[in-house]
């Protein structure tokens, strides 16, 4: 089975990339040492004991960061692939249904209004978590609003979903502009860095908080892949094939919102992963969502881990924001793919 081999090799590649990424940085940790630390932490006795400094760097800094990159990359890519299936459009992106703009607006509000917030709230929720929680809430609220706007009775029209998403995005951007206009220099800097994305805040707490929001969609979305395939024939046709279309739409939207909302909340805006990863896979394995969704998650994890490794080492000791890296790498890849595809189709127009 060719499809099984693609999946297995992607998973192996992910493991290799994770081990390598965890070793690369200001303190180099060789691969055998990484394995020894992992064995030691798993309770297996190793001789000699791993170097304490290396172990601390690995366990407190590198590992949570790598895991965070894996989860965010996987979550963004699988959400992108699912939304593209739902919109029956390979160009769909979480941006389209307002998730990203809702998250941005919430983040900008927190950054600018931070000093006006009542003290008890700040004692209860430290600044970093406040940003995470509010951003996530903003993403969910916007996605819900877009969904409500495009639903009449119990029918959700995909075309109005798109239009409502665009309208809400425009509105959010207007508010963001308004708030940015009143922001001072430091706040502006924070806003800019947030919108470029960064995994610099990685810690076990953030990684742990992120995990359920990513793991749930990565497990459940592939269950919907048969329905998504049928859905690509058309809504009525999916109904004829036994798909509960309404439940499918709600499921895809809710799970994608969870993944993207959590990703944006913990790392800011990271573009292109959700768009490029499914596109690369579709050009290799076709659209069959039974392979596409899970493979997207794995390839997304690989690419984001690589991008983060590049971002934090290329201008060390400074860090290049990961959003810049993904866009710098993603755009040429995307354009190359488009050109290649155009050649392959030989002028035949396919949507």
């Amino acid at each position, binding site marked *: 089975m060719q499809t099984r081999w693609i999946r297995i090799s992607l998973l192996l590649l992910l493991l290799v990339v994770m081990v390598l990424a965890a070793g690369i940085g200001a303190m180099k940790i060789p691969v055998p040492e990484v394995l020894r630390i992992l064995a030691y932490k798993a309770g297996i006795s190793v001789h000699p004991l791993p170097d304490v400094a290396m172990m601390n760097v690995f366990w407190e800094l590198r590992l949570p960061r790598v895991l965070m990159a894996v989860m965010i990359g996987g979550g963004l890519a699988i959400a992108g692939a699912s939304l593209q299936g739902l919109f029956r459009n390979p160009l769909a992106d979480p941006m389209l249904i307002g998730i990203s703009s809702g998250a941005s607006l919430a983040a900008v509000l927190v950054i600018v209004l931070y000093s006006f917030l009542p003290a008890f709230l700040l004692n209860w929720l430290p600044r970093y978590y406040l940003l995470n929680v509010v951003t996530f809430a903003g993403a969910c609220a916007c996605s819900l609003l877009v969904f409500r706007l495009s639903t009449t009775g119990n029918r959700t029209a995909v075309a109005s979903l798109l239009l409502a998403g665009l309208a809400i995005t425009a509105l959010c951007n207007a508010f963001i502009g308004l708030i940015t206009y009143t922001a001072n220099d430091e706040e502006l800097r924070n806003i800019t860095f947030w919108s470029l994305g960064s995994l610099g805040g990685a810690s076990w707490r953030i990684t742990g908080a992120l995990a359920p929001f990513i793991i749930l969609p990565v497990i459940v979305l592939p269950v919907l892949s048969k329905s998504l*395939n049928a859905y690509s024939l*058309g809504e*009525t046709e999916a109904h004829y*094939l*036994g798909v509960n279309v309404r439940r499918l739409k709600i499921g895809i939207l809710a799970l994608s919102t969870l993944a993207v909302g959590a990703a944006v909340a913990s790392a800011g805006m990271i573009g292109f992963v959700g768009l490029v990863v499914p596109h690369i896979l579709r050009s290799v394995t*076709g659209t*069959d969502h039974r392979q596409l969704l899970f493979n997207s998650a794995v390839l997304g994890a690989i690419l984001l881990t690589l991008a983060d490794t590049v971002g934090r080492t290329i201008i060390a000791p400074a860090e290049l924001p990961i959003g810049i890296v993904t866009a710098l790498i993603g755009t040429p890849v995307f354009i190359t793919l488009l050109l290649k595809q155009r050649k392959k189709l030989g002028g035949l127009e396919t949507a």
Partner: protein
Amino acid sequence: MIRAGNITYLAGKQKILHDVSCFVEKGKVTVLLGSNGAGKSTLLKILAGALSPASGTLAWKGKPYSAISVAAFARERAVLTQHYGVSMPFRCSEIVLMGRYPHFTGNPSKQDLQIVEEAMRELQVDVFADRYFQSLSGGEQQRVQMARVLAQLWPTHENDTEKFMLLDEPVSSMDCLYQQKSLQTARRMAARGFAVLVVLHDLNLAAQYADEVILLRKGRLIASGDCKTVLQASLIREAYDYEVEVVYHDDFHFPLIVPAAHKKQTFLLQTKTA
């Protein structure tokens, strides 16, 4: 097997179907005829369970549609619709496999894959199995979709034939050979016990393959019954405002329907005022 009683359907304020009652019987090919906009596709969608009528009753094997789940109905009823906007690149074998989706969870069984192959052979699209659906011509795409419909209903054992196949203009893009072949396939399935409903425009194809005909005009039923009683010049004129001659020939067991305008004898084309 399908019993529709007093179906009325409204689109906004406009009545698309007025009080239509009909049957689709097991073991027979029932052809739905009518002019453009007569309500054929709407009636087909209602019988397929995709649209709910404003009033009227619908039953499949004696069970009201409202009591049948979407998933359970999909195992017994398949529909070929007119337009497939398959927007993403799918291989033809994947499209046909979708017909088996209602029958398995997780991965397809060996039997499912075998059925896909047989259904593709039946419509002679097995050579396209690895081609992308979009790269096929319109007629070839229709045959692949028809193979998917067959795969959905394919009997897995001797008595597994209580199925309902609905085909909305299944041969509109096919050449004359495959028009015949596809409708022969529909016939064979009816012979095995399926209830088959086909929307057609070509009166001669209808005459050739129909056991029963349902004739609609402006959302009303004007005739239904066996092929020879419905396919009469007077009823066809009423349905289409179009003059035909229904010719019987000893060598054929079905009537031939010829436009009267081609008769050598001149006559006035009758048009009726609504």
